[in-house]
């Protein structure tokens, strides 16, 4: 179906065992967390057994692995849902742009939903129960907390990978429209989300205040925000984009960013 694979055969299927292995590996999603790619390398770590089974051609594997090293961040419990969908797409050798688009489009919303559901609701409830028992010196407190919490936790991890995978398989079968249309749709969706992520995730504000006699101009709220909200995040991302296009290495950009952060802090403008 797709053209950008050396080996376009799509007859490999992932077994339940395969999926379980991926779910186990998803536990290390944040092993190599960092502020440039966030969970990317951990995400790829999780996918590896599946990708190796699907892409027997080394060049295809390389392409796929490279794609999955791109920026990734989502909620660590819901990640297996995305893993399932993506594995279905990989296995069907969908257009790589489509795979990327779907990945990017799902990670953002699931991140927010997961945070609300698990970090801000499940955790306080179960830990609250545990702590109130523990407070009375009852050792059942921590145990009950761990049990309650992890039933949901592991239930989701192993349930969602299957759900994602079969949903993906089914969706692909229904969409017989060739790879071009799907990847166009995925790009539209994905880039809308990236536009939103830039404004939401890139945390770039200046604290600079220009004082002249009586006048006091807070650069961020009195000037920049009036021109455009999230102006600095947007500008900086575009700048990084151009530097990358001009061949600058991402490493250089990190060094620049770190220096800017430290110097900006020293001069009290960031």
């Amino acid at each position: 179906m797709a053209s950008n694979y050396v080996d376009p055969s799509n007859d490999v299927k992932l077994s339940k065992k395969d999926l379980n292995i991926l779910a186990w590996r998803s536990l290390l999603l944040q092993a190599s967390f960092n502020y440039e790619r966030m969970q990317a390398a951990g995400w790829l770590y999780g996918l590896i057994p599946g990708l190796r089974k699907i892409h027997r051609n080394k060049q295809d594997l390389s392409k796929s692995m490279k794609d999955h090293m791109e920026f990734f961040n989502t909620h660590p419990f819901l990640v297996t849902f995305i893993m399932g969908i993506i594995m279905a797409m990989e296995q069907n050798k969908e257009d790589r742009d489509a795979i990327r688009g779907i990945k990017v489009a799902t990670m953002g919303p699931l991140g927010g939903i997961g945070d609300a559901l698990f970090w801000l609701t499940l955790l306080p409830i179960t830990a609250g129960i545990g702590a109130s028992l523990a407070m009375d010196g009852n050792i059942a407190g921590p145990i009950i907390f761990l049990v309650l919490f992890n039933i949901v936790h592991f239930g989701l991890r192993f349930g969602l990978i299957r759900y994602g995978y079969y949903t993906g398989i089914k969706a692909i079968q229904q969409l017989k429209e060739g790879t071009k249309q799907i990847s166009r749709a995925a790009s539209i969706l994905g880039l809308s989300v990236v536009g939103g992520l830039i404004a939401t995730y890139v945390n770039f504000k200046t604290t600079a205040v220009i004082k002249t006699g009586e006048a006091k101009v807070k650069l961020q709220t009195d000037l920049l925000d009036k021109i455009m909200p999230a102006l600095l995040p947007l500008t900086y991302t575009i700048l990084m984009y151009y530097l990358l296009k001009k061949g600058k290495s991402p490493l250089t950009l990190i060094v620049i960013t770190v220096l800017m952060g430290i110097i900006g802090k020293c001069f009290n403008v960031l």
Partner: protein
Amino acid sequence: MLTEALLIALWAGIAGIDLFNGLTHIHRPVVTGVIVGLILGDIKTGLIAGATLELVWMGMVPLAGAQPPNVVIGGIIGTAFAILTKQDPKVAVGIAVPFAVAVQGLITLLFTVFAPVMHKADRFAEEANYKGIEKINYLGLAILFVMYFVIAFLPIYFGSDAAIKFVEIVPKWFINGLSVAGGIMPAIGFAMLLKVMLKKEYVAFLILGFVLAAYMKLPILAIALIGSAIALYDFFLNKNNAAYREEEINDGI
């Protein structure tokens, strides 16, 4: 004391990993409290100190990678000192806070300096060297373990005053500066994404998503819904057009 300090440090290493990986939440104060209590032979104080810290730090969870004060080190050291100094468990909170905040800085530092390693990972991916990718992740785990191990060991073994002095060596502007840089750094990740995703045809949607988030303050889910709506519309529009075209060609024949 050495044995206890080593055991606690071991536990800190495991819990520190669990804070980001595994996420069974054995790292929460309510659990670490009882474990530390067990090691130091005062389960009851451990339980209560842990529970106290748990309730205080209820909402302290990392959202979108932003680090709150570190509950692992805070919980462990707070409980340990409460037991060692035979203080009321409530005192744990006071001791825990400076450590939790200092380690928050260190984690931010780690997440910043680990970024360059990703370019090694890129190379491995390029070469389809999956073992390399795995090693990088294991390296990450190892660093986390060692860090938490050392950080927990020192103050327990040498006492908190010495430890706090040690922690204060790192200048504030440096940690804060890194933290600022960490906040900005996703821009590089997005720029790399854009490098592969962005075609002239799709700039429109990048603009749209940005406006929806920046001006209208929509959460990402709402943006994804609007993006889906457009993608669906576009999909069927082109499908209809293609159908018409085909029809004509058939008509023509």
